[in-house]
């Protein structure tokens, strides 16, 4: 047992340590209400070398959900107040710097820890986003789970329309809106982490969600146009013919090459793209009825797992075979044609559907190869299997040679169900 003097000394040391520890409470501790949480970041081109960053941060006012900026007089653009959030734009040399600058204006510390999405304006995305993604992946506060979007027009304007119509909670609305991707397949769901990994990847190119504000002027006025029925119009975001509700909408995929936006896939192409990468969950496809022009067949399509991709190299020319199995549930056949009367009709329909999908996917692949030379399908990972070492693969430079690849798509469609009807009777024609 230690003599008393020594034990006292030890006691004193422990006490001092304890005091030191207890005095540190203020280093990293931050009360929740000391901070404000940014929900959305928008990046626009500023004057000269500067960038304009728009932050949408949530406010802590009670009952902030239903008011909206206009209640307090002045529109959202003037006051920056919108549905329990405040929108402020700042021009700064860099993204992180902009937070600091804004901190001096907003009275609380701005935190990026809860940011749900980052929006680049299309103009900016075409110039390259790498510089602005980098700090986000290095800076500790930023979650890697925010979504990456590219919007037509200015991000600032876009954020000014970013409000919740259903409930009082904007963050919930934003989160849930991305989950809709799984229900429609009209746009992909892209996390910052994924985006960043693909930016660096030697296997594939990055994609982002395409989005815009819909001004509600695409909905044709009554009787304006008639005659042409196009089941798959080439829509950009902001062009969905609709009225009322939320103005912001997401539609299509932005295709990057390196860190620069090179083009976009529209909503239908996006679905074929998602199908080809195995990320497609389910959705409705509307096809022209082969038997009666002007009528449609509506299919509910579920992918049967990811497609099988096999590759080989011959004379350094990559050959890629993509096979996939689709599970089809007929949702509607407008002319009530009975395809289940005999096998040939049934097989014929299957064949028709298969051709439709093959053609659709081939078209998307062709577009990425010919127009942008951007492998967003991650075929590179399969190609890499044909090389032994990383230096060999990097020397081959897949991303550059994507254009040369011979890609063959094979789809097996299986009409497994036909809704409630098995033998529908045609509607008696008017007598």
């Amino acid at each position, binding site marked *: 047992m*230690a003599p008393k003097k020594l034990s006292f000394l*030890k006691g004193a040391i422990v006490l001092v*340590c304890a005091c*030191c*520890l207890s005095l*540190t409470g203020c*280093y*990293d501790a931050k009360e929740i209400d000391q901070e404000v949480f940014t929900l959305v970041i928008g990046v626009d081109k500023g004057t000269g070398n500067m960038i304009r960053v728009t932050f949408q941060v949530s406010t802590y006012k009670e009952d902030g959900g239903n008011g909206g900026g206009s209640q307090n007089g002045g529109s959202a653009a003037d006051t920056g107040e919108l549905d329990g959030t405040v929108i402020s734009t700042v021009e700064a040399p860099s993204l992180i710097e902009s937070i600091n600058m804004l901190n001096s204006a907003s009275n609380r510390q701005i935190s990026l*820890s809860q940011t749900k999405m980052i929006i680049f304006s299309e103009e900016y995305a075409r110039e390259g986003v790498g510089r602005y993604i980098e700090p986000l992946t290095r800076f*500790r506060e930023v*979650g*890697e*789970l925010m979504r990456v979007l590219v919007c037509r027009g200015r991000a600032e304007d876009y954020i000014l329309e970013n409000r919740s119509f259903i409930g009082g909670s904007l*963050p*919930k609305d934003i*989160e*849930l809106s991305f989950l809709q991707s799984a229900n429609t397949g009209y746009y992909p769901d892209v*996390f910052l*982490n*994924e985006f*960043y*990994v693909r930016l*660096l*990847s*030697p*296997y594939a190119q990055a994609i982002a969600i395409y989005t815009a504000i819909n001004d509600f002027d695409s909905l044709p006025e009554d009787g304006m146009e008639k005659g042409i029925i196009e089941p798959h119009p080439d829509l950009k975001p902001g062009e969905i013919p609709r009225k009322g509700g939320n103005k912001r909408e997401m539609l299509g995929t932005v295709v990057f090459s390196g860190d620069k936006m090179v083009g976009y896939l529209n909503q239908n192409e996006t679905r074929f793209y998602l199908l080809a990468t195995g990320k497609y969950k389910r959705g409705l496809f509307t096809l022209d009825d082969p038997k009666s022009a002007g009528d449609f067949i509506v299919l509910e399509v579920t992918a049967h797992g990811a497609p099988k991709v096999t590759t080989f190299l011959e004379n350094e020319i990559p050959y890629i075979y993509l096979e996939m199995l689709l599970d089809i549930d007929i949702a509607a056949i407008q002319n009530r044609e009975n395809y289940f009367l005999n096998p040939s009709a049934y097989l014929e329909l299957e064949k028709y559907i298969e051709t439709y999908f093959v053609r659709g996917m081939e078209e998307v692949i062709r577009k990425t190869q010919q127009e942008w030379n951007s492998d967003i399908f*991650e075929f590179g*990972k*399969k190609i*890499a*299997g044909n*090389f*032994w*070492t*990383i*230096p*060999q*693969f990097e020397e081959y430079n897949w991303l550059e040679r994507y254009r040369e690849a011979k890609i063959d798509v094979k789809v097996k469609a299986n009409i497994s169900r036909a809704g409630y009807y098995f033998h529908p009777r045609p509607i008696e024609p008017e007598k």
Partner: protein
Amino acid sequence: MLEAYALVTIVIITKIFYTFPLTTIKQTGTAAWYTTLISCVGAIVFFALLYLLLQRFPQKDLYQVFEAVLGKKVSRFIILIFSVYFLYYTGINLSEFVTILKIYSMPFTPKEVLVAGFLTVIAAMAYVGLEGIVRVAYVLFYLIITGLVLILILAIPFYDFNSLKPWLGYGLGVSASEGFLKISAYDSVIILAIIANSLQGLKYFKRIGLSCLLTAGAIFSICLACILAAFQYTAGSGYISGMYHLSRIIYYSRFFQRVEAIFLFVWVFASVIAISAVFYIALSSYCRVFSITNHRPLLWPFLFLTFAFTFLPSNIYEIISVHVRLIRGYSVFLIVPVPILVLLVSIIRGKKGGKASGT
């Protein structure tokens, strides 16, 4: 005996939470996941030699074998080197841990405070001694493994194992040489030989050692493969702590995301146990050299030395490129050859411990 297994396994696998994935992936690319298996096989060979050595001297632990073979003076010198190495290892590991903690979780708390808090616990653990450490290790072993498995499972949506291609990484030669150097990732298994007398016999020693190495090898391999699958070799070689990043991308729904902070518990548990075990081994090695019977009075000076070692590297570059490289790369030239040389000497000199020569 599961306690010793838990302890040594934790000591070995704690590296996966640090910069081990970073350096391995940087050097071997997509081959990282089996490079570590090469090291594991190397470590098993090393362990077999260790076993042979101990087998020649039943009922003696490694240090006693040193003494029996090399004589008092030489063996004491070697044990002293071991002691210093382990202390250095403690300090650097602590420094690495605290730096990572600062980067990921507590950027503004001074390093001193974090180290002091950590050392308080280390002091308590070392004060209690080996028995306390192994028991704590055993209790927390399940938690650590559960946490690890949970991270790996929850991040599944982000995996694409096609990212492991091309299979050979930067080439077999690189993998093999790096794999040899990385044997040092497993060399903590020597702790088992040092505490061999507590293990109820060589049979257990063999069994525990092998299962430790195999478990650690499997864990390293799986974790590295998962990191590669999620981040590919390009981004994966950039992140300071690959495992921490895996936990950062866990996303299940809008309420279950960004849960990485909870895995801080696993980090801290593993680090505390690993570091306190090595610290204790350093301490008791020193006691062995000078025949000190009670290790407790030495606690304060050793804590102070560890504290000093912790502040040896002044920046993250030094930690990763100098000290950690030293500990997890070139330490293979210290830890591995010594027992092998001792084995050779004992064979050449024909020294063998009789059955009766138990201590």
